């Protein structure tokens, strides 16, 4: 009986010491930041890994970037090892002028980085409110970069904080948007199932420049 116990305890000691030594520690340091224009974060699509930055590190044989996902309020965060990194926006990705300038990040424990971008258009004075069965949206579009046309503006309503041109329950696309003036439009929700069953609803407006892969968005507002 004692022999069995000894054997068992020996076995368990062996298995317990078997792991651990050859594994690396998980990364503990954090790069946190925002994509900003004029000190304000730029709202983007936050689902589907749509908007990414790329993190490179020199000094190694292979140069594959680590993708950094930008969430819908324009912020990003990544856990990684200490070291010196280069942070760039992904080629042709995002509602801003394609600019692959490098931001150097020296990471020791924690780093805050703001990536400056130049959007093609901005959205300002955004007001979203629910009255009766329709959502009233007003916003102003301003052109920041010359040479681009507006494809469409869009009012999107979703059931969660994640609301964009892919995840939404109601959507209205507006064409022929004028810049520099306030646009006010309604989105009828009376036929919408999620509106009728009383769920919480979130909304924001977006603007797509013709020929760009992503829209710029206002910040998400809880409308109910």
């Amino acid at each position: 009986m004692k022999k069995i116990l000894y054997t068992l305890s020996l076995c368990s000691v062996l298995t317990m010491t078997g792991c651990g030594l050859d594994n690396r520690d998980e990364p503990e340091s954090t790069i946190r930041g925002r994509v900003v224009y004029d000190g304000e974060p730029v709202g983007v699509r936050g689902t589907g890994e749509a908007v990414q930055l790329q993190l490179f590190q020199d000094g190694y044989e292979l140069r594959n970037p680590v993708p950094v996902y930008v969430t819908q309020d324009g912020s990003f965060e990544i856990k990684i090892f200490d070291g010196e990194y280069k942070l760039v926006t992904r080629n042709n990705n995002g509602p801003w002028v394609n600019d692959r300038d490098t931001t150097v990040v020296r990471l020791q424990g924690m780093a805050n980085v703001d990536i400056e971008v130049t959007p093609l258009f901005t959205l300002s004075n955004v007001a979203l409110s629910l009255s009766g069965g329709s959502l009233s949206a007003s916003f102003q579009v301003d052109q920041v970069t010359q040479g681009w046309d507006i494809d469409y503006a869009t009012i999107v309503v979703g059931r969660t904080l994640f609301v964009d041109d892919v995840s939404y329950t109601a959507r209205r696309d507006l064409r022929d948007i004028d810049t520099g003036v306030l646009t006010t439009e309604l989105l009828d929700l009376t036929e919408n199932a999620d509106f009728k069953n009383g769920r919480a609803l979130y909304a924001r407006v977006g603007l797509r420049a013709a020929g760009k892969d992503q829209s710029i968005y206002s910040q998400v507002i809880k409308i109910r």
Partner: protein
Amino acid sequence: MKTTYKSIFRIILLVCSMAHLQSCSDFLERQPDQILTDDQIFGDKVMIRSVLANFYGRVTWGQHIGDWYSFTVLDEAGKSDQGPDNMQNFGNSHWRVSNYELIRNFNQFLKGLRASTVLSESEKQEYEGEVRFLRAWTYFNMCRGLGGMPIVGDEVFEYMSGMDVGTLQYPRATEAEMYDYIIAECEAAALMLPASTNTNAARANRWVAVMLQARSAIYAGSLANYNNKMTSPIRTSGGEVGIPANLASTYYEKALKAAQEVINTSPYSLQMTKPDDLERNFYEALSVKTNNTEVIWARDHGYPGEGQQVNFTTMNIPGSHAEDIDRAAAGPILNLVEDFEYVDNRNGDIKIRDEQGNFVFYDDPLDAFANKDARLGGSVILPNALFRGTAVEIQAGHKVWNNGTWQTVTSTPGERDNAGRIITSANGPNRSNEQFINKSGFFFRKFLDETPGASTRGRNSDMWYPRFRFAEAVLIAAEAAMELGQQSIALGYINQVRDRAGIQHLTAISIDDIIQERRVEFAFENHRYWDLKRFRRAHIIWNGVVNSTTAQHWALFPYLVVAPGTPNDGKYVFDRLTFSNSLHPRFFELRNYYNFIDLGWQNANPKIVLNPFQ
């Protein structure tokens, strides 16, 4: 005593070692039967042919009948087997082809073939033409997904330890160079290949090479044209992606010339064997191999022969006609059905409601599709149409007239009401996630095999899958002539195809007419995806908007009218519904115009530059 022991020991040792040495010798002398040397292959005619046959089995990519699911990812059909289809975006490596192992094998073959002494010069020519065509076809499939990729010529790379790997690393060719190379290789191959047809159009002949020449030129022309008409054209600074606009007309001229060569001098034609039954005629032109004059090159399947059959018919046959447990895995969707025009009306919408919003009543569900383009009935099994001589019942349920409103009644598939009328047909459609029940209201007809036993798991079907056919030559000629401003020539060609479909002639032609004609003529033939890419329309048509008419999948449900005492009792009405098994509209983003380069390729070869959006 001591010496005796010693000598006994010695004798034993001697005997043992002798026995040991003998037993080994035979084993080590055997020839390997899995690995063959170049001499063994290229010294034997039969071996050379079997290597060639192996190549033909390795050149099928994209949409094809060996993969029924591939028909559901675009806007042609929807998945009906069990759970819903969660697809929303197109992957960065969707239908991506990069097979340099195959390219290397082609080049090994060419090297061995040229040195071979067992073949006559003319046989060598034919084989060389065939392999160079297959190599061009492989590059073509790479190029339409990825843009320009390294062109390695006839090189067979060998790595030896200690050598400089830099000499093995080739940079990407430009997209234009890639198409030029494919066109030049096809021109060379066409001169070596025989002009005669072969069994089931399974092997490359001269016309196959000329067709690839035409197709590559029209792709390159339309890329040069439409990419540069985008608000921000998709290109890389080195031209690996993006063809300069000024090259468009040269490519269009090449495409027109090659297509006309096939139209005017090849042994093929727009097959017209049943002028009285254009639907049947179209089906037979695509899906019947005997006496076929339409198909120029196909991926053939054969029966008998182990592993040479395809299960497309087994998986997709209507339940009422199934011969095995499998059935109804996918069905064409309304988006495609409505894109087929009427004989005298270019708007192909099915008339299901009148101007007041009331149902339109039909005596037979098939009447709703009367006067449609004959290619519809030849490509899709419509409700109550015949397959193998018997009607395919497709009925979602009853519409019951109840106190002034229409009530929809459905049942478990195959159930009857008290009067003995079927409610929901055993075939479907319904909106559940049940297996083996149709969800769209239509079944495939194109490539569905009518041979008895072709839908059993044990036999499967020997249906082929055409890659090039005569109608493509005609439509390439129409497109190229239209782009070159030769309206009357373009109209002459496109109207030939429309004649065979029994629909009215066009009097003017634009790019939209070309897109529309190719959509219905080549449904399920691995053209739609590549066409919308090269015309730069994919992101507009598959825009990801919920309930959009083009990006969302739609279904058409037929109902039997139950309204006793009214004239409409026993007639049929239709509902247009979203296709319940495709949860999301199709969403093609700008990044999808070119596949992403695998970062592993770049690690192995730093000269590879990445694609835009990567």
